[in-house]
């Protein structure tokens, strides 16, 4: 899930590289509320700190998101996971994989890291109970070979949380 996949990944295309540099500049000027980008020299992997929104069940909790960009970003979706320990949430697996449509089938090149972050925070904020998905153990076991969440065929049916 972490290092092995990173090494086999293809480098960013020129257009992806330019785009990410612009996104990073925009982030620095105008970061989404509740998020902090941890400065590294790796443009292809962003580590982002998430603070649970005040007044929600994740208030005062901090988590880390790992965002890996593919060669043809933004035509292809980035891979976004929580670095364990991941928040206890009905759509977040204990290995950090997130079941959120915009990260997979509904990804659009019109989106940005910032808009992904806002969607993830909104998903966290609307949860009322801290619990894992019902199929957590089975899913995590199936991912033991380091499978990316982008290879999972997700089934999105709950639009409330």
């Amino acid at each position, binding site marked *: 899930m972490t290092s092995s996949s990173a090494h086999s990944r293809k480098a960013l295309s020129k257009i992806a590289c330019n785009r990410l540099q612009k996104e990073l500049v925009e982030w620095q000027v105008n970061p989404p509320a509740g998020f902090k980008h941890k400065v590294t020299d790796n443009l292809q992997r962003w580590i982002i700190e998430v603070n649970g929104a005040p007044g929600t069940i994740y208030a005062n909790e901090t988590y880390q998101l790992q965002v890996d960009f593919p060669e*043809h970003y933004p035509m292809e979706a980035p891979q976004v996971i929580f670095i364990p320990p991941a928040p206890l949430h009905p759509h977040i697996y204990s290995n950090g994989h997130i*079941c959120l449509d915009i990260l997979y089938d509904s990804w*659009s090149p*019109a989106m*940005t890291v910032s808009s992904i972050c806002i969607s993830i925070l909104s998903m966290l904020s609307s949860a009322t109970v801290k619990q894992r998905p019902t199929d957590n153990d089975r*899913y995590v076991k199936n991912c033991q070979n380091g499978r990316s969440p982008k*290879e*999972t065929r997700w089934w999105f049916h709950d639009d409330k949380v």
Partner: protein
Amino acid sequence: MQNQDGAVADREKESAVSIPISEVDDWANFADDDIMQQQSAIHAEEAKKIPFVGDKYLLCCNLTVLASYLLYAVTLFQGNSLSVVSLSNTNYPMPMKNGWTVFIIFAILITCGIEKFCYMELQEPLSMLAAEYESGSPILLEKIKVLDQQYAAIRRTRGDGNCFFRSFMFSYLEHILESQDRAEVDRIKGNVEECRKTLQSLGHTDFTFEDFFSLFLEQLECVLQGNEDSIRFSPFFSQDELILRSRDQSISDYVVMFFRFVTSGEIRKRSEFFEPFILGLTNATVEQFCKSSVEPMGEESDHVHITALSDALGVPIRVVYLDRSSCDIGGVSVNHHDFLPTSANKSNAKGGSTVPVKPFITLLYRPGHYDILYPK
């Protein structure tokens, strides 16, 4: 929230229409969808290899037609009409029921081989369409005859959900290449600038769309010959070059996405106008519709998309419908609809130039897919 356990991404899912076999084995119930499926059955093996934009077909390719006939005859004889389909649409090997299945596979392989071999100059007229529908409804065959009288050729596009935008892209750029209509290019550039402002006013940050915009503008410059830019980019820009570019994913997909941005911007800008149409399609809000059905790549286009794109860019589009809709008694006619840009968008026309009214882009719609048609 659930993952389909253990299911590795189905790489085939984009490439072919999924076909419920049981529904197709009764010829009496053969409907439009089945006709599309039959076509995809023959071409499914090739699905991944079909270029974004195909060759323009003018003459009959007898070999392919022959192979199609052969396949059809064999499947009929076998009784189990579409075992071919299940074979080409799953990752699992089809159990070899009998010798005929083997023979069909062999026939497909030969067909594919022939297609690849003929790739350079493979040409077919609309009669090629007729061959595809040989087993289908007589109404369709009649309609194809009517089309054959009005249209000279067809150019296929890949059925990946972007076919409307891809057909539009190729058809528009080809028109500019052939007409060298500088006034039209200046006009559309004005509209593109409007679209840019629309997106900005809707809250899009420039970097999210500027790469897509500049790539489209670059293509426009390239097809206008004699222009300094076109000399710099490509001194001998020809139709072959346009085809190459349309098949180059890094160009083609960016231009498709440019159109998706433009379409989404137009729908959201005039949300009161589009809302009733969108409610007729889904019960999503305008915003949700754009996020889920316009902006992601691979989402198919409907009337709403075509109207919005045509209005935003001020380009009229004719869509010819090849379906089984009933015809007037005493003669078969093929329905078409002209999407004409609304007058609201003519206001920015500079120097008294007007939006052309007669569409120079003609697309053939068959249930679920758009291709390009060439009038005679």
